[in-house]
């Protein structure tokens, strides 16, 4: 151990406050040494300790009849019938992706997949949620988009987990802080799932997977002892490189170990590497752990103990094994060509002790590391001034509906995502019932024949306009997507992407959003089973749009009945379902017109929206209608165009703007609000449905054109025109 102890300055450079450093000294009864300070600084970071969000997260609803595992484990899980559980979680990899988008996004996928198999579930799907600056004007954003998408595809395709859905939006406030969130789902027999709590004094702590290098030790390198000074800076790469091949072996190996009952508990290594994994396992099990860093297989020979403890090398797992099973575990690892090493032992000391061979190089109370990080209260304050400048105008305010629809369809936020999802394998594992653009939510078939519906959504602009209602609307939109495939929500995951929570207006966005998520999840009986928080997404010009990303999982009794979003049959009736009251406030059209964000969104009748969703869901499940699509960004006209494009068939529609709005044609056609659906089906079936839910028949399916008759205007578009406009993103992937 180097004689010289790190100082307060070192602690501050590592991100601790002076008070936190004092507290760490107090917990240790002396100033922490190099290894200890590295570990305190990581475990007491925002990322690991949730210093600014833990109290808020406590307000979220986490209980429900379907919940098998709630927040607190590597992933949450819900019961999907027949003794099967669906594990799922969303996680961010925003900062690494801004630095190196390909590897950042790839390792983001790798990380969330490990969370899934860490609880014993086989990963069956990935979804991704992305935010960049405006790709039309920003070359850097195009670069980030292209490489992040390539990275997500690279990892998921190579490891054989289908990417079945996602979302991407382009807004100026993400120019300096792109968001790359990845969600994964897994399936497990409920009884065979495993937790991460270490148990059994005397049991062996075993590390398996990739060897440990200096990946991602970035910040902690200030602790490097003098011999490895500045001259060796190039030896301290911060970019983590993902190896999906290694993870594929790790995944199969882990599932086999679990299947054979060889593990007491299991934990992936993610942010803060061995430090976080070992301490979490000890904390949850209320035990101690002794680790010997000299036993950790290294990729680079000359690593210091603190480097080994904080390394974020990918594709590694930590498990607790009974001594008599160690041999069998190591044999299984060998079979899968995964290296493994017994690196420590479970103790009853409730201390985390780090050895380097014989030498004790760190000794800390587990509780201090994991539970005693100070939590901070937020000081939310509603801003009095707009936080975000209006976006540049690209569509004239007086453009007619004819032109406006094409502008909207081609806008980066609404254009077809085909150039992205064509880079993803969405069908491997043979469960994918609907491919991207065929339905609003992705659908996987379960062994029982039931369907699992999944959706991921977020709308930062609307949340920026109204953090509470925007967040409510985001949750409702996820549920609407599920309703369109006939799925009933079972559980929810969320990723809170925000700016600096120490700033009062960001604290306000965060507080209000979490309140909105909680209320909406309660109303839908779709409790939160897990999630992730990414704060400090700020540039000198200000914070990102507050971006809660919601992932929701639901069940439908028969996967074959999940329907389509596209119109199907010539002559069928088209109906607008729900009490739909669209407004241009914070809409995509307002954005294209360069309008500033409004201060607040119209009130949402959540019960009413939920009832509409239920009616649509039941109609889809019953096979009574031919298509269902929720009205989202771009409003009614865009939704109709999407139904035509997905079905490759035209439609004739007549609308009375007065019935929807105060008479504004633009608002009726392009305004946005939760609670509206476009469905199609036989006239008789639609009429029957009208007895259960408010709906208006507005036209019929057929022909090669979309023709509207509304408020005295009669615009029409050929399918080819719509399609050409909708291909607006192709240019981003030369």
């Amino acid at each position: 151990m180097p004689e010289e102890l790190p100082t307060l300055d070192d602690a501050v450079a590592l991100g601790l406050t002076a008070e936190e450093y004092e507290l760490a000294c107090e917990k240790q009864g002396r100033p922490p040494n190099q290894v200890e300070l590295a570990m305190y600084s990581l475990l007491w970071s925002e990322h690991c300790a949730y210093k600014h969000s833990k109290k808020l997260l406590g307000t979220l609803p986490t209980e429900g009849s379907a919940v098998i595992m709630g927040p607190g484990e590597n992933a949450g899980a819900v019961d999907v019938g027949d003794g099967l559980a669906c594990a799922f979680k969303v996680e961010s990899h925003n900062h690494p992706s801004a630095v190196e988008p390909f590897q950042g996004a790839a390792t983001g996928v790798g990380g969330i997949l490990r969370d899934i198999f860490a609880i014993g579930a086989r990963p069956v799907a990935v979804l991704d949620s992305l935010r960049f600056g405006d790709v039309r004007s920003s070359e850097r954003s195009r670069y980030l988009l292209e490489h992040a998408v390539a990275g997500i595809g690279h990892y998921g395709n190579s490891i054989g987990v289908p990417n079945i859905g996602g979302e991407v939006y382009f807004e100026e406030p993400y120019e300096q802080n792109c968001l790359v969130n990845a969600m994964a789902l897994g399936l497990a027999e409920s009884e065979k799932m495993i937790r991460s709590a270490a148990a059994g004094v005397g049991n062996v702590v075993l590390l398996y997977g990739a060897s440990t290098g200096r990946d991602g030790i970035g910040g902690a390198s200030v602790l490097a002892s003098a011999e490895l000074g500045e001259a060796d800076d190039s030896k301290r790469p911060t970019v983590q490189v993902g190896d999906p091949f290694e993870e594929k072996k790790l995944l199969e190996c882990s599932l086999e170990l679990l299947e054979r009952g060889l593990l007491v508990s299991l934990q992936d290594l993610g942010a803060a590497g061995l430090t976080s994994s070992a301490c979490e396992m000890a904390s949850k099990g209320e035990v101690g752990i002794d680790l010997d860093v000299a036993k950790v297989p290294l990729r680079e020979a000359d690593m210091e103990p603190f480097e080994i403890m904080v390394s974020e090398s990918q594709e590694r797992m930590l498990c607790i094994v009974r001594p008599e099973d160690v041999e069998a575990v190591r044999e299984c690892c060998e079979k899968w060509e995964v290296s493994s090493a017994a690196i420590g032992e479970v103790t009853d000391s409730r201390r985390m002790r780090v050895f380097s061979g014989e030498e004790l190089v760190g000794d800390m109370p587990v509780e201090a590391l994991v539970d005693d990080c100070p939590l901070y209260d937020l000081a939310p304050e509603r801003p009095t001034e707009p936080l975000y400048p209006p976006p540049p105008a690209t569509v004239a305010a007086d453009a007619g509906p004819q032109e406006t629809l094409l502008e909207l369809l081609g806008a980066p936020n609404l254009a077809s995502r085909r150039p992205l999802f064509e880079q993803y394998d969405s069908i491997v594992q043979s469960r994918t019932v609907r491919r991207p653009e065929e339905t609003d939510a992705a659908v996987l078939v379960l062994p029982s024949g039931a369907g699992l519906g999944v959706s991921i959504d977020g709308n930062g602009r609307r949340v920026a306009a109204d953090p509470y209602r925007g967040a409510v609307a985001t949750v409702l939109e996820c549920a609407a997507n599920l309703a369109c495939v006939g799925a009933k929500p079972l559980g929810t995951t969320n990723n809170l992407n925000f700016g600096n929570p120490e700033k009062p207006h960001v604290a306000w966005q965060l507080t209000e959003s979490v309140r909105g998520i909680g209320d909406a999840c309660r109303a839908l009986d779709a409790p939160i089973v897990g999630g992730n928080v990414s704060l400090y997404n700020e540039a000198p010009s200000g914070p990102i749009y507050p971006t809660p990303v919601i992932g929701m999982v639901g069940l439908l009794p028969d996967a074959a009945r999940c329907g389509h979003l596209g119109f199907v049959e010539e002559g069928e009736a088209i109906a607008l379902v729900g009490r739909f009251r669209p407004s241009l406030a914070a809409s995509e059209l307002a954005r294209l017109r360069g309008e500033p964000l409004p201060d607040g969104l119209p009130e949402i009748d959540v019960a009413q929206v939920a009832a509409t969703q239920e009616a649509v869901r039941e109609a889809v499940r019953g096979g009574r209608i031919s298509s269902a699509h929720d009205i989202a960004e771009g409003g009614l006209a865009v939704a109709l165009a999407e139904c035509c494009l997905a079905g490759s068939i035209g439609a004739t529609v007549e609308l009375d703007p007065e019935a929807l709005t105060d008479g504004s044609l633009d608002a009726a056609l392009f305004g946005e609000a939760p609670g509206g659906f476009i469905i199609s089906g036989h006239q008789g079936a639609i009429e029957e449905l009208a007895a259960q839910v408010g709906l208006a028949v507005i036209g019929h399916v057929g022909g090669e054109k979309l023709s509207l008759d509304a408020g005295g205007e009669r615009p029409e578009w050929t399918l080819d025109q719509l399609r050409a406009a909708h291909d607006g993103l192709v240019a981003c992937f030369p």
Partner: protein
Amino acid sequence: MKFGVLRFPGSCDEVDAQLAASKVGEAVLLWHGDRDLQDVDAVIVPGGFSYGDYLRAGAIARFSPVMESVVEFAGDGGLVLGICNGFQVLCEAGLLPGALLPNANRRFTFRQVSLEVVEPGTSFTSECEAGERLSIPAKHGSGRYYADEATLEALEQNGQVVLRYEPAENFNGSLRDIAGVRNEAGNVFGLMPHPEHAVDALTGSTDGLRIFESMRAAAEGAHA
């Protein structure tokens, strides 16, 4: 009829292939490290990313112990089907002519493609009609079929070009739109698109089933 589906470290579509083959017969997985082919009637070298596709797709997998047995099996006239990565492995192993190079569009691409059945008489297409179109998904980063001119000519002459992409759908830039070829003896066949992902109307088309049914017919004919 018993199919054996190889499993390399990094295979992804082996379970899918097993599932598809089990619709027409029995199907077992064969571990890359074992030489025993368990008396199967046909071998499927599945898709995925064996050994991460590092270096070149299929380059490392072809050296695995199980491949030695597969080469022998093929030499004795056994039916061998290579799908996607499996096609690449068979080319690397010299069981099929040519090579598969990175896509002309430089990206991994997933698309449902339409394939023309050029040779309906083979052990892998006997259940298809000449000129019939099969709708089957393709998903790969290195699917550009290449062979030198002389080889291409010979392939055409011998009826070894079994499947072709509709010209507009040849996104990977394969020479002469070639999607699938067989060896001269006719018992080894490789294709880039994934017939095992086209065997169930619930998850797509069922056109791929014809390939597996043809193999069953060939295997049963051989037994008879």
